[in-house]
């Protein structure tokens, strides 16, 4: 109601008259309810040949918390800026709240999209107090009502009592809370978070992550977060979208993506691991570290004798001192005691390092010859080479 909805409608209508075929197709696809919807989006920066994102598809449902995980340079911030309206798309469709807001012929400016955006560096207004920052998006309301509206928001982020402070008088974590309050105050259609924790130190990060999860849940806002930190993505979101080079490779619940990565690239992004080469032989993979039972992820079908990459995760492996002859053995090169467990670095004969995480220190020491197994009934995932 604070926002000029009519203007959005006008933009969409003129878009329809300008490009008939395209928008009809878009209209048909938007029957599925998504708060944020990107369909085959391509966006490139002038002066660079390759698009920053291309064939980008994403659908965020009402109330959902989705994270985009990708290494820096993958184009994830670009995707966020496309949704917010700061970048124009060269093809594909962008919908926010069911409205077409971006395509090759429609571009609704950011101020008419009703999107709450939290920037990596917060971008708070240094010339305004906390209260004025949060009120900023409530223009058009009488001053009294604005004050009333911001009180619960500030309370939710735990910043009540700081109304008259200036931004530079706040710590990094507090600034971030204000940034979130500012984004939430106008009751946006969706909340976008761009690497929200990257400017904070490690300890603060974990605490704030939990806070944000709680705040977002409380507010019920549909949220899209962008990060290069796998823990952040896995811990906060309902679904994780893993980005490869400029498009999404896999999307699913954190557990599902972690358990069943669709590709070696996704596996590497979603958790620490080693990928060692081997040969697939009906239910096992034969590698230089040993023979391991396999679990082929749902959409990959492998033939007997096919070259494969085995995904080795430290927590799924176990080592025992080498006993009988004839087994492949490797050397313990280093142990790192990390409190709850000890991490063993195992040097294979080819030079590859495997990491194994285990509890007890049972005489396996630096220099020991060991054999590598899977822990319990764990099975390794294999990918075709």
């Amino acid at each position, binding site marked *: 109601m*604070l*926002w000029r909805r009519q*203007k959005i409608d*006008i*933009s969409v209508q*003129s*878009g329809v008259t*300008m490009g008939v075929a395209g928008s009809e197709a878009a209209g048909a696809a938007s029957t599925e309810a998504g708060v944020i919807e990107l369909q085959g989006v391509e966006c490139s*920066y*002038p*002066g*660079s040949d*390759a698009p*920053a994102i291309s064939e980008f598809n994403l659908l965020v449902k009402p109330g959902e918390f989705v994270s985009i995980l990708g290494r*820096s*340079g*993958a*184009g994830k*911030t*670009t995707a966020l800026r496309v949704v*917010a*309206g*700061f*970048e*124009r798309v060269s093809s594909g469709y962008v919908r926010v709240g069911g409205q077409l807001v971006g395509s090759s*012929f*429609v*571009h609704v*400016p*950011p*101020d*008419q*999209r*009703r*999107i*709450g*955006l939290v*920037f*990596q*560096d917060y*971008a*708070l*207004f*240094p*010339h305004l107090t906390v209260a004025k920052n949060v009120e*900023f*998006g409530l*223009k058009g309301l009488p001053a009294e009502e604005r004050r009333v509206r911001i009180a619960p928001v500030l309370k939710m982020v735990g910043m009540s009592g700081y109304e008259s402070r200036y931004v530079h008088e706040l710590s990094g974590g507090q600034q971030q809370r204000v940034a979130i309050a*500012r*984004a939430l105050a*106008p009751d946006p259609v969706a909340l976008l978070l761009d*690497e929200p924790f990257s400017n904070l130190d490690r300890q603060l990060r974990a605490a704030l992550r939990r806070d944000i999860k709680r705040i977002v849940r409380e507010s019920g806002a549909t949220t899209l977060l962008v990060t290069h930190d796998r823990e952040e993505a896995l811990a906060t979101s309902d679904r994780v979208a893993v980005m490869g080079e400029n498009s999404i490779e896999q999307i699913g619940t954190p557990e599902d993506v972690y358990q069943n990565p669709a590709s070696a690239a996704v596996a590497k992004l979603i958790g620490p691991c080693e990928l060692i080469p081997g040969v697939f032989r009906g239910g096992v993979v034969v590698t230089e570290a040993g023979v391991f039972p396999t679990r082929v992820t749902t959409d990959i079908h492998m033939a007997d004798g096919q070259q494969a990459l085995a995904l080795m995760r430290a927590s799924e492996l176990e080592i025992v001192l080498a006993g009988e002859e004839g087994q492949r053995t490797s050397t313990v090169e280093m142990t790192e005691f990390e409190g709850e467990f000890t991490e063993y670095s195992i040097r294979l004969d080819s030079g590859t390092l495997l990491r194994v995480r285990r509890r007890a220190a049972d005489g396996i020491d630096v220099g020991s010859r060991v054999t590598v197994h899977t822990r319990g009934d764990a099975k390794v995932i294999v990918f075709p080479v």
Partner: protein
Amino acid sequence: MNISGVISAGYKSADGKRPPTLLVVSASVVAFAALIPVAYLLIRSIGVGSEWFDIIWRQSTAAVFGRTFLLIALVTVISVIVAVPVAWLTVKSDIPLRRVLSVASVLPLVVPSFVMATTVIEMYSPKGVLQGWLSGLGVERLPDIYGLGGATLVLVLMTYPYVLLTVRGALRRMDPALEEAARAMGYGPVHTFRSVTLPMLRPAIAGGSLLVALYTLSDFGGVALLRYQTFTSTIMIQYQSSIDRTLAAVLSLILVAIAVLLLLGEGFTRGRGAYHRSTVGAVRVSRRINIGRWRWAGAAVVGVPVLIGLVIPVAVLIHWLVRGLLNDQQLLPLLIPARNSLYISLLAAVTTVLASLPIAILSVRFKSRLSRFFERAIYIGFGLPGVVVALSLVFFGINVARPLYQSIWMLIFAFVVLFLPASVGALRSSLLQLNPRVEEAAQSLGRSQWRVIFSVTVPLVMPGALAGGAMVFLLTMKELPATLILSPIGYRTLSSSIWSAASEAFFAKTAAAALLLVLVAGVPTAYLTLRGHSDGVDETDRVDESDSQSPSETAEVAQ
């Protein structure tokens, strides 16, 4: 797509953003206005035809050429020789009274050339104060102050701060690790300065020298009082003495050509110039170097230009004032010129800052070919001597804009054209420090681009606007040729009334007005210097700063 989108569709910045239409329109108006003087001068001179060659090849023209270049070369070289040690000593060394000297060494900037000239004549002429002191020591007669020597002295004293400010800024921005690396590799302090520091300072020295050269080219009051004829003073004489102003117009065009040559020359010395970029992020402050027993000698090196360029001139003015008051001599009327000067300078400052806003915002936030063109267009004022702008506005006023002619607005117009670069420079550096995400945040909260400019951008660049305004105020206060040519008849300012008394050699009469002028000009200068801004003179910030994208985004785009 909304209507403004359609209109500004033709304007698309390098990163694909489209600025509000009104911003582009207002920037176009400003840039167009800034081009009027040169354009009109060209039109006017083309009509002259073959007389052109006669004027250029006339013997006297060649002589004026020679004298002007000789003066420019001398003033520039000596200014650099004075300013570089002063800059180094005030930034890097531990001389006593460093802070005071640091501010004071910039202040000769506030003394207008025609005031500096009167005090120099009083002190150092063959009948001057110094001669009086020295005659007791058996010195018969000082060399004649009039001519090249005196003109050089006056101009060096008032222009060395330009080099000082640019070099000081560069010294402060320079990463001390470079010098430390040289020291670690076994270079002594002197060798380090010569082989590392000095080469790093070259662009700053070139930039400062350009300001000195352009100022020397355009000065009128100082050279006229010291009877050294340059291009500018020739044009003024031509303009004031003859009915036919064609000669003045042609000479002005030559003056423009010289200014362009100087600008090109500076670009040439800058060379590939990649080393001018300072690294992003906090610059570590280097430790001051202990120069031991040279401390007081160092203080003297900094102090002497301050003494000659500021203390003595002010002392002479005070002396005249006291003597005048005691002897009940007639002083210039103060009240009305002072009021006029303040009014004009304030008006010029406000107008210029307002005019530079759209240009600065476009050039920083919406880079494109068009915004670069706008920027270049307004930098014309940077190279144009005041006399040229004033003359062409006279022609323009008489022939085109009759209602404006002989009004204050014509004068303000000239000041805007002349001082836009200073103001745009200050605004630009303020804008570059402003995180563009802050503006985007405002937009995502539902404000249109146009409203974001007023609710976020403008309040946040206020310091830059104030600095720019202060610069324009100071420059307007001191300006002489344009004030003389364009002021409505009978409209007296401090500078024009000082000039008319001084040019008839009634120096003592000018004391009160000149002191007031120095004081009033000193206020914005002190503000600029104390602000701790690394380059108080933001005119030199016109070097292309690379774009202001955040590192993460640059990385992302680069991929």
